[in-house]
């Protein structure tokens, strides 16, 4: 079952990635957008590896596996796009945004709390430690997504236009954490399926939602 779920995720991310390549790589487009497309591509590669691992070995094995780097890379791209590109545009570091910055910490805190729950229940071992590292990358990306979701737009609607995308990215981060949770606690199949299906939907809609927002930049 896990193999098929991973395959579904690979296909969904592949659709998202393919669509992004088709829409944004024909002509010169913003590096910010490209990085987000790379993020979906990275997720696709990670899931592809997991699918193949299931296909070849029948199991993913305990502890670290390379497929985890798909999630890490994916969130690093998202983080990189926000931190390296967008954040300096929307937040000039002035005290006006101090409150926003503080509130935005809620997202990484919740995400880290989910991992802490796993770690406290299962203990620190070769399974939970790699998950913890993964969590750190998800948490740091989620900070900027929440920040860009709630921050006051002062730059001609630049950030307002992509708020839906940021919401999607935040949901994606949450779903990744929920995936960890359902896998760690061996929850019923329908829980696992729901989390995976929601991730599939998010991965497919990621780029189109971003595209809708980005279009507003030029209109």
């Amino acid at each position, binding site marked *: 079952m896990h193999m098929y779920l991973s395959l579904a995720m690979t296909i969904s991310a592949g659709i998202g990635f393919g669509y992004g390549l088709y829409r944004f790589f024909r002509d010169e487009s913003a590096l910010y957008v490209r990085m987000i497309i790379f993020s979906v591509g990275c997720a696709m590669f990670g899931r592809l590896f997991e699918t193949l691992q299931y296909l070849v070995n*029948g199991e993913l094995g305990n502890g670290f596996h390379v497929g985890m780097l798909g999630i890490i890379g994916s969130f690093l791209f998202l983080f990189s796009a926000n931190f390296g590109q967008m954040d300096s545009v929307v937040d000039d570091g002035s005290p006006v945004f101090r409150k926003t910055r503080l*509130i935005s910490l809620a997202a990484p805190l919740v995400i880290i709390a989910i991992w802490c729950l796993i770690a406290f229940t299962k203990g620190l071992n070769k399974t939970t430690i790699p998950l913890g590292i993964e969590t750190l990358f998800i948490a740091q990306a989620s900070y900027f997504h929440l920040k860009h979701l709630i921050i*006051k737009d002062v730059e001609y609607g630049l950030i307002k236009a992509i708020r839906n995308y940021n919401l999607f990215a935040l949901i994606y981060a*949450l779903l990744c954490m*929920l995936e960890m*949770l359902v896998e760690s606690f*061996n929850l019923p199949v329908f829980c696992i399926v729901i989390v995976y299906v929601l991730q599939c939907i998010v991965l497919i809609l990621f780029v189109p939602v971003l595209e809708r927002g980005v279009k507003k930049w030029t209109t």
Partner: protein
Amino acid sequence: MKKHFKCRSLTSVLLTILLLATLIVPMTLPVNAARKRFITELRVEAGLDAVATLEGDGWSVMLVGLNVTPDPASQVYLAFKQDTGAPITNVMASPDVGDTLTDSKGIVYTCVSHVDLDEGIDGTAGCLYATTDERAGAPLVGLDVIRGDSENGDVLYPITNDGAEVVRTPSGAPADLENTENTGVVYLAQIRDGIVRPYISEIGVVTDTDKWNAVYTACERGFNYYVEGDIDNSTDTYTIIAYDRTANPEDALTSVTAVSEATIRQLEEEQIIDSSTESGKHYTAAAITISGASYIRVSGQPVSAETPFYLYMTKDRSAGNPVSMIYAETPEQTQNFMFGMWANSYFFSPGKTTAYMYCMNEDLYMTLWEDQTVCTKVPVPYLDGFTRPIAIETSEENAADPETVSETAEESSGQPSDSGKETTDPAKPEADGKSDHVKYINLTMLTPRNGLPASAGRITGMQDPDNIAFVERTQRSDRVNKFQASVFSGNLGIALIAGGVVIAGAAVFVIIRKRSGKKVPAATGKTKK
């Protein structure tokens, strides 16, 4: 502005609540049971299309044929299915071709498929039979085909010391699946659930003309492990210690001791209990008591040595902790050697079962070596005399020890239990200066003081086989490594040092350049001139 912030704060609070809610809801749901993968169906097919047909029908085929023959048309394949029904608990091979057979315990076996194991090569191996009866043992989680050809110089022992159990015939002999006049030998090994059995439960002494025959006889007697090395001094015979394992420390041996034949004779001569049994009998004490612990004899005949001796074992906890390993070593061999040999031979696998990897043994070896507290090297006390008169054990005392003592003694020695004898204080022969016996035997037991270390679970190179099918691993071992994906070396280390120096040098160079403020052409597309 204020309204904006209020709105955003509310959003973030709601989101946090949502996140927490999604956390709590799944937590309240039940947990799935862990999966197990047992072998539930077996099938044997022969011929050119056997593999394709079986795979087409959804069977997993073991790609190692059951015949040692270059003719693909005479090749016999074994296929299995997992988790489709009741798990198989034992497999047997019998030349009697029928639908069922019943073993000595009354367990009924069903014929796997009416395909002769020697199909096309005129042998008498017969058919495979399997049972799902729980009395036959723990469910099977893996199979392994072990093949050898004496023409190629292969010496194939039916006992592999790797925890796998060879498939036997109804008479208990190891089943050679290529029972022909050819030089090939094929054994089928079965791997049971709960293969990690760290303690020794039974031992036996087997003497035969050579090592192969001794191991074969040990296998016939139901043992699945043997100690490497000939423990007698005769050039005409080969004597090994065979043993079996258990996961239950309560069922484990706690000590093994050797008693000289002369001592036993002296004991019997001086302490004859029943004159009615005196006449024409070869007296050997089937059960003795040393320091309050009851020992039972495991060698029916004395082991040939300058001073012939008998081996005794006990499960009495007063004699020590459960024994994990017995190793026969000469006095010149060091403890280190013993550890090494254990690490090598305990789970040494001459077959294709990569599930038990040498490296894992090495890992255990390291654990034992580093943590000296977990093992005790106890030379087996070699009793060649008693300093005090031996008290005659009363019949009540004898009865106090469970029947198993005499039963096991009978099983091990093949002789009836004579009587119980008690020694109140056994002599310590080493202290007496009688050291010539060490020329012949120095049995060593490895006894964990506080149970086995945590890593003991890894001694077989596998975890509890919840989700792992060992058969898959078996098949993986057949892969050739020409598609190996990386290069491994590790003897010279020159490249490692050179690489380290280059990296460090480059880093220092970059730092010095930065400090000296040298500008490097940036983002111009032009290279440095």
